[in-house]
């Protein structure tokens, strides 16, 4: 293996690592606030890619009608919960989907890449809060295991919907930039830099959001102590919706970014989500910097093991979990102590 090969592998690994990092962040936000391991996040990533692809070919994606349909249910439900909830529901589940649908109807035939990307983000992002509203909020107090099982079930529901909406074929998203330049003998594509830049902007944006805004602080409070947060008047329903909204936005963004590098099919999201989960586990499902390091490690390890022993790549990546779990459990003491 010479330097060229090593650098090329490193570039490949860091690019995929950045995608895993995005998913790990989404998983961490949702888990710390609601204790849900958000398995369907990977499917929302595939929704992101396929929604852009559909809009780019001038078709209206099935996800748009899903958004409209479930939003109507959420709107009806909110009408029975007092005036304030009804007003809020009208805004979030009435006006917003109506505006997105109108924009999609008007703009989809133009097939402009930037517009398609923004529309896809606008369509997929509300899926998170809707999933929270109908699937998780009614059972928010259940055990982590029960929530995980529910999460798995939702994954299968979304995969089925994905097949109905988009069919079995793969599709790709439009690249944000076509530029590419040579760094020595290494060819770096603009899309790779776009992935890394988006990742950086998102991390800084989240840092500002959690540090400087009232909603971000509410999320942090709910994450550090759910009961305490409720006692000081933080609405558990709203923080949950916000956490799921952030996660689905991140998933859609990751889908748009990676979809331009490689075509995805409706069922490709789960594997990517699983790698993001491995990264999040490395952060013990609490630490963002550790999860970031884990994501890059998974990406680079995947790239290197593809080179050395491609048939065993998944084995190598997932085996990495074992020492990490051993170390985590040793560090946090025996299970009896934690309980």
């Amino acid at each position, binding site marked *: 293996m010479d330097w060229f090969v090593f650098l090329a592998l490193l570039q490949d690994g860091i690019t995929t690592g950045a995608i895993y990092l995005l998913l790990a962040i989404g998983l961490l936000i949702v888990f710390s606030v609601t204790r849900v391991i958000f398995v369907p996040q990977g499917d929302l990533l595939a929704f992101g890619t396929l929604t852009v692809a559909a809009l780019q070919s001038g078709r209206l994606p099935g996800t748009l009608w899903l958004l409209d349909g479930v939003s109507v249910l959420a709107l009806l439900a909110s009408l029975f919960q007092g005036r304030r909830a009804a007003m809020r529901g009208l805004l979030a589940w009435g006006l917003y989907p109506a505006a997105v649908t109108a924009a999609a109807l008007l703009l989809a035939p133009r097939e402009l890449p930037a517009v398609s990307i923004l529309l896809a983000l606008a369509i997929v992002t509300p899926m998170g809060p809707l999933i929270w509203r109908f699937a998780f909020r009614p059972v928010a107090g259940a055990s982590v295991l029960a929530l995980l099982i529910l999460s798995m079930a939702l994954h299968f529901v979304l995969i089925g919907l994905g097949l109905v909406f988009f069919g079995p074929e*793969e599709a790709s998203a439009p690249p944000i930039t076509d530029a590419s330049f040579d760094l020595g003998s290494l060819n770096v594509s603009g899309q790779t830099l776009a992935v890394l830049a988006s990742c950086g902007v998102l991390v800084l944006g989240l840092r500002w959001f959690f540090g400087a805004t009232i909603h971000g602080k509410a999320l942090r409070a709910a994450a550090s102590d759910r009961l305490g947060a409720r006692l000081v008047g933080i609405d558990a329903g709203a923080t949950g919706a916000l956490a799921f909204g952030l996660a689905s936005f991140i998933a859609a963004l990751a889908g748009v970014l*990676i979809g331009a590098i490689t075509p995805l099919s409706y069922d490709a999201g789960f594997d990517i989500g699983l790698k993001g989960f491995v990264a999040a586990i490395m952060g013990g499902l609490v630490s963002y910097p550790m999860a970031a390091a884990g994501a890059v490690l998974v990406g680079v390890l995947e*790239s290197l093991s593809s080179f050395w022993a491609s048939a065993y790549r998944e084995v190598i990546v997932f085996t990495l979990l074992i020492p990490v779990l051993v170390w985590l459990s040793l560090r946090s003491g025996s299970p009896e102590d934690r309980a």
Partner: protein
Amino acid sequence: MKARLFAAVMAMGMLGATAAAQAQIKIGAILSISGPGAAMGVGYKGAFDFFPKEIAGQKVEYIIRDDATDASTGYTIAQKMISEDHIDAFIGPSLTATDAAVAPLANQAHVPMIAMAPYEYDPTKQPYTFNDAQPLPLMVAEVFKYMQQHGVKTIGYIGFSDGWGDQVLAGTKQAAAADDMKILADERYARTDTSVEAQALKLISVHPQAIMMGNSATPAALPVVALRHLGYKGGIYGNHGIVSPAFIKVGGGAVSGVIADTSPLVVYTQLPDSNPIKAVASTFMKEYTAKFGPQSVNPFAGYSYDAMLLLQGAIPAALKVAKPGTEQFRRALRDALEKTHGLVGVSGVYDMSPTNHNGQDSRAAVLVEVKDGAWRAIQ
């Protein structure tokens, strides 16, 4: 009272007699119409719309059931078809795994079956099993013949990390040994992978003259794009699993020049007029595309159609021996199928024998190349 009972018994007896006289040939088809195999199942099923309602003066009933791309469902359906529908022959199953599950059942009940997916078995041990899909080694051998003519001595292999990747590799090894070529690398990736950059780098680092791919459908475009992006200049070859318009759509300009084998039906319009398959395929496809559209051409409808042609060719001989619905008829049908000689189908030409229940030769494989955004037959 007695007279009335007698009349009733007589009437029932006559009913039974007419039923026997009207005995029709029943053919059971087990297809994967829903589930992950649905994209292929649509093709398999579409062909049945154009099957004859009568063969050699006998009415034919086709019973089509969906196994939902699940072998155990297929097995249950096969059991029902044998014990309740009393079918005379199976068309299908259309999935390799279901073929393997149903074959013992069909052989035990002495019901001839024409499997429609590549399925390996010993016809002397499963005398009732026939297969009209091209065996993989036959297809791969055609690709290697072309490589050898173009002076390729070393190849790199990249395929799926699943059964299909293993099957194509086995075929590749067999053909490479026969043609005295060296396989320098064996790289694998999963259908859902998002990057094969590393595998492509590895392949390039061992400098093969050509790349052979053991993958299928649109994920097959991924290594081609990566190899071309990294500046690989050698030839890239694939198997029939990649030959579809979707492969070109996903791969774009990078897949130009990729060569693969395919069923003659897929490029029937480009076959030379001297090829007997062209006339049969044109007749079938004229009806098929009129109903399903010009973009609907696919190899899978051809396997259903050939299964029907095989049965159509064998049924007259079997009718001379016994009536449909009897074991003697099924036995005679099997014997007649085994004697099929020079039957021109849309996927190949069939010459069966007791040791060869597929009967196809190199005429069942056509080489195609991606040129100007479409698959073109190499003459």
